[in-house]
């Protein structure tokens, strides 16, 4: 998975392998570049279905809607984990294999890299003129002086420099050789990048094991305390304990909502702001807060985000004697950008029990056929429209019920004088007597509600640091250029000849100019007569990089 060829990809094709060798063969296959590449592409492919099939973790409502629309698919999809792709065994298997492959590659490469760091820069080539860029010149200077100059020049260019003393042995006798290498950080960047990927995965995994996320609707004038029972929905990691919830509580004083009234963005949200006070722990003093989108409240390592808002009509229900049996603000869930909102009211204190199911439009418009629609998201002229149901709400058997829907099994719809189902439309401040002495319903006003998301994501700073380190490493691995350079002093026919060569281990540099600079630095006042890579490249009608290519070990 690391950007390089790996050794040992081709196994022997000898018949029956002993178990140990077979395991070794499997391992080598797994950590091979080809496998890593295939796993990467497979991971990309495996991520696709989760963007088309609704996901439980992303939008549970959408999963229910999907299940109702395509009931015949539900069983298969569930068995395949298609509603929860990113936690499914097959998706996990791919990224875990990828991580194993990655680690299996990083570890040996780290050792190789550590050895390379300790080793001397590589030996000088025998033929300097076969290097991508080279030059030579005559000099009268003392060989030691030339070598000294070369060492200084290369050190100034941040090379790691080493020298060989002159020798009359070997294939190329010389008076001194300087060997230099730089760009070691490229491989370091490469390793850091890949280690960081593991870091990000660990950070995300641990964070989700210990973290939690829940949302709660809080109506203006009401509060929320951070205990499990107060959440509308709640997900947490396997190692999370409910007792880990910090004991803060929040009182929402105002939910300020405004929309653009005119201009091209008419009806678009302008401001969402939740104002109130937070008590960090029981018996501690309350502090004011002001939460807007993009500016969460932070308490005890937990963040409270404003992720939604809506309207809660204040409805009072009286029985036939005029006694109040239900009163208060009931949140209706917004269903479209103009805040047509759906909700339910359950009154169990009456006999028979009463259920109201309907919708609220914040600013009322009436179509030609009498249909009520919402024409603007602000609550300028609201209408509450509902059907009433009588009977048994089904609360007695103790099975959990949504507060946003009626279980109509034992309910009958209240009918009007014409025998049709009775749709009741109430404007703000209006009330209606239910037929048959069923009491009265009044729509007294509207309060805004805020939907808060409370979340704790442990290790998020660690994950971020790993991601940033990964990106820095990536930059190093892509843009640092490992280079080698050599200077050799020889005696040829009684003259002292200095040879210079460079090798760029990735393509793209203008080595010729570099060699010219180095020749100038080493020669002092000596006259360069050699062929630099650039000159040769020009003669060949190619650019310097064209010559350097072909010996690319990497990119």
């Amino acid at each position, binding site marked *: 998975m690391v950007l390089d060829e790996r050794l040992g990809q081709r196994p022997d094709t000898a018949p029956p392998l002993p178990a140990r060798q077979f395991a070794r063969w499997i391992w080598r296959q797994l950590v091979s570049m*080809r496998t890593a590449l295939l796993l990467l*592409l497979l991971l990309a492919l495996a*991520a696709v279905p989760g963007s088309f099939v609704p996901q439980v*973790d992303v939008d549970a409502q959408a999963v229910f809607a999907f299940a109702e629309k395509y009931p015949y698919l539900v069983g298969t999809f569930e068995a395949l984990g298609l509603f929860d792709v990113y936690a499914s065994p097959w998706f996990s298997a791919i990224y875990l294999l990828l991580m194993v492959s990655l680690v299996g590659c990083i570890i040996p490469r780290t050792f190789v890299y550590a050895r390379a760091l300790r080793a001397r820069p590589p030996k000088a080539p025998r033929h300097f003129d076969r290097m991508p860029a080279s030059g030579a010149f005559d000099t009268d200077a003392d060989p030691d002086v030339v070598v000294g100059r070369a060492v200084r020049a290369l050190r100034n260019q941040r090379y790691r420099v080493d020298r060989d003393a002159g020798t009359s042995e070997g294939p190329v006798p010389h008076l001194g050789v300087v060997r230099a290498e730089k760009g070691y950080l490229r491989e370091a960047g490469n390793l850091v990048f890949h280690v960081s990927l593991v870091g990000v995965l660990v950070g995300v995994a641990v964070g989700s094991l210990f973290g939690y996320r829940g949302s709660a609707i809080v109506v203006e004038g009401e509060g929320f305390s951070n205990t499990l029972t107060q959440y509308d929905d709640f997900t947490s990691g396997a190692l999370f304990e409910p007792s880990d919830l910090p004991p803060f509580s929040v009182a929402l004083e105002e939910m300020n909502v405004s929309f*653009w009234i005119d201009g091209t963005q008419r009806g678009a*949200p302008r401001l969402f702001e939740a104002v109130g006070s937070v008590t960090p722990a029981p018996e501690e003093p309350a502090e004011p807060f002001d939460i807007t989108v993009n500016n969460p409240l932070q308490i005890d390592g937990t963040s409270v985000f404003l992720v939604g808002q809506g309207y809660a009509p204040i409805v009072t229900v009286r029985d036939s004697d005029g006694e109040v049996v239900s009163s208060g603000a009931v949140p209706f869930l917004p269903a479209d950008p103009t805040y047509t909102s759906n909700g339910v009211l359950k009154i169990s204190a009456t006999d028979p029990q009463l259920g109201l199911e309907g919708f609220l439009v914040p600013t009322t418009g009436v179509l030609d056929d009498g249909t009520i629609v919402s024409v603007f998201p602000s609550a300028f002229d609201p209408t509450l429209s509902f059907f009433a149901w009588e009977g048994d709400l089904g609360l007695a058997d103790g099975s959990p019920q949504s507060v946003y829907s009626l279980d109509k099994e034992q309910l009958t719809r209240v009918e009007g004088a014409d025998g049709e189902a009775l749709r009741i439309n109430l404007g703000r401040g209006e009330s209606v007597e239910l037929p048959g002495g069923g009491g009265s319903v009044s729509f007294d006003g509207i309060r805004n509600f805020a939907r808060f*998301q409370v979340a704790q994501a442990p290790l998020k700073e660690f994950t*971020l640091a790993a991601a940033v380190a990964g*990106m820095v490493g990536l*930059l190093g691995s892509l843009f640092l250029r490992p280079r080698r350079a050599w200077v050799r002093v020889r005696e040829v026919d009684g003259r002292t000849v200095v040879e210079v060569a460079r090798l760029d281990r990735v393509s793209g540099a203008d080595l010729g100019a570099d060699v010219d600079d180095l020749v100038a630095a080493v020669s002092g006042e000596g006259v360069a007569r050699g062929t630099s890579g650039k000159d040769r490249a020009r003669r060949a009608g190619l650019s310097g990089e064209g010559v350097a290519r072909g010996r690319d070990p990497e990119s």
Partner: protein
Amino acid sequence: MSVEQWATLSDQAFDGAAVVLALAWIAHLVEYAASRKVAYAASPVTVGAAAAPTPTELPEPERRATLFGRIGVALSVLGTGVLGLGVLARGTAAQRVPWGNMYEFATTGVFLAMVLYLVLVKLQGIAWLGPVVTGFAVTVLGLSLLVYTPVGPLVPALDSHWLVLHVVAAAIAGGAFVVGAGASAFFLVKSRAERRTPVDQRHGYLWRLPTADSMDRLAYRVHAFAFPIWTFAALIAGPIWAYYAWGRFWGWDPKEVWAFITWTVYAGYLHARATAGWRGKGAAIIALIGFLTFVFNFVGINLFGSGLHAYAF
């Protein structure tokens, strides 16, 4: 000038830029047509302002091809300038960065892609990518009218400093993906031609272009430039912003899923270039798939209309 005047100027500049870039595209197509019958020597001539020989020395069809190539580049420069004016006017009219919706992202993204392309024309002589890049720019500018949005304020969710970083990084990376995809596509065509066409039959547009190898190198460089920027946009700035706005840094929202897919595919491309059997053709195909995932994320996911990025980039 008033806000309305700036807004009008911006609209007109975008229209004007689309027309000028369309002319640039036509000039490049004429260049293609004119060079169909020209025989080229085995060593390719680099097309580009600096590298091309002076027109007077050349035979008529080649002279015409070179001339139209230059006209194409000149019109591209003009069109990009006008486009930049439009982006600037849009920002002035809206009094914020001009990438707050799909229309603005498309226009700003095309502008950045054109700037990158022209910088590389100057530095690397890649005017041979002209037909693909100008064609793409004109297409996107045209399609962006389908999602035209009048100048307006931002919704609260977008009112964040991260809008500047996250979106502009995505746009720069996107611009580079366009150039990279063009280079990879040309590489596939050219390397196939190099394999199959005998030297004495090498005439026509394709042989005016650089070698397949240097196309491949260009593609790599552009992708290597884009990939870290995409990493920043999709996997660092995006999650940070998502955390502040939505209360979680990664939630497999469809837009996030496809940003991840794009990242993974391009990571695959970088690896493929270092894997035996995948260098060249295989890697280029992966790069093109990566580009398709990027385009799908921008167009397909937005039109699906689901997910939290509903205000659409």
